[in-house]
């Protein structure tokens, strides 16, 4: 089966705008708001979310990036991964509400690694999770707080988020697992 698109550019844009509203709604305003994107595409999504938040409520959120490579549980099983930069906003994360941002939520292992990484950076007041796509098949007790689209999938399928910054166009496609993609 060829890759079929499930979200188009307009859908992605709407989802990001809605998540931004939800983040503001749920934020009780005690402590700063920090969005941390998980490389590669989570960083792009965090940047876009941050831009929407800036329009809605200027100065409401700081945006950074959190690389989790060194915290993964599969380092010895996979080919060597090249870490990406971690950028923590100047104010740090102590006492902040951190929103982790990733493109696809699958096993939950990346988020587990991210929680460990956050632990070494400081002590946030709370950690939330925003994902563009939740495709199910969790292997750990982890759930998202903000979801762009719930996408039931077979474990063998590949769900790929393409973003114009990294892939030239905005779309989410589901393939049969034959095509190879970056993590």
């Amino acid at each position, binding site marked *: 089966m060829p890759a079929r698109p499930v979200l188009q550019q307009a859908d992605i844009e709407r989802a990001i705008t809605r998540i931004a509203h939800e983040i503001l709604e749920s934020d009780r305003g005690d402590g700063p708001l920090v969005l941390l994107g998980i490389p590669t595409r989570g960083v792009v999504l965090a940047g876009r979310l941050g831009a929407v938040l800036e329009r809605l409520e200027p100065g409401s959120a700081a945006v950074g990036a959190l*690389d989790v490579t*060194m*915290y993964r549980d599969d*380092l*010895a*099983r*996979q*080919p*060597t*991964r*090249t*870490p*990406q*930069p*971690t950028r923590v906003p100047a104010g740090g994360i102590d006492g902040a509400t951190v929103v982790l941002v990733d493109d696809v939520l699958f096993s939950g292992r990346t988020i587990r690694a991210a929680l*460990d990484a956050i*632990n*070494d*950076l*400081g002590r946030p007041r709370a950690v939330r999770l925003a994902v563009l796509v939740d495709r199910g098949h969790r292997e750990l007790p982890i759930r998202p707080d903000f979801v762009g689209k719930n996408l039931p999938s077979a474990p063998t399928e590949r769900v790929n988020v393409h973003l114009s910054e990294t892939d030239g166009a905005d779309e989410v496609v589901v393939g049969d697992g034959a095509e190879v993609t970056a*993590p």
Partner: protein
Amino acid sequence: MRHLLSVRDLTRDDAVGILDIAEDMAAVATRAVPKLPTLRGRTVANLFFEDSTRTRLSFESAAKRLSADVITFTAKGSSVSKGEGLKDTAQTIAAMGVDAVVMRHHASGAARTLADGGWIDASVVNAGDGTHEHPTQALLDAYTMRATLHGGAARGRDLDGLRVTIVGDVLHSRVARSNAWLLATLGASVHLVAPGTLLPPGVSGWPVTTGTDLDAAIDDRPDAIMMLRIQSERMHDAFFPNEREYAREWGLTDDRFARLPADTMVMHPGPMNRGLEISSAAADSARSVVLDQVTNGVSIRMAVLYLVLSGSGGVA
């Protein structure tokens, strides 16, 4: 990356990749918890058949920051003094279950022998073999030059166009050898200055220019000048008349230091013989990056240990 034995095994992209990972490792040192869980459950053995302070401590703290367990072996006070050879020592250590061996040895090629000998399964990192190579020193020197030049925007860049002068005991220096090849790989041009007696016979095959006149090299306004240690312990011949004459001809004296351009980096792999190859004024000046080299050494060794100990082969 299975082993790190020689900088000549590294392509430009390999080398830039290691420097980039070291940038991430350096950022860890500034955090609330300056430690990563990456190598939890792995064991790194430091095998030092030759004296070392900074390299051994640097590898040890790099391994510990990555949560690896470290066992350290130094030849003094060990069974080596009872006549045990490299193979038996290595196999004994390997039998205790180690994943990587960091080795310094007085014989050139010892690291390659250990890696290719089929004696042990562990990854081998060369921490200095005789007068042959010292790859992590060259990597940390390149990192220091890149960071001094480009600061926070260093990621992904090489050393294209950088002019580096290396001065002193090139003949006995594995640091000079590794630097000459690595810096050339990264696009820098390297000029070696030494007394004729301290230039190795095979230097014409290196990617460098050579000279014997330090004053001319200084008037050439290099971007970085690296002073090598006079290795008295390896000097079994009369390579120069005496130390005073060496300092006068090939030392970075106060006078020569004053003539260097204001932004020339002053480097030394340590330990320094103050007053011999480098004056105290030069070593302690704001242009001296000697202590940066030590700090960066830990980040580079973290990157190298990560690369040899993670992954099932290949780079994603």
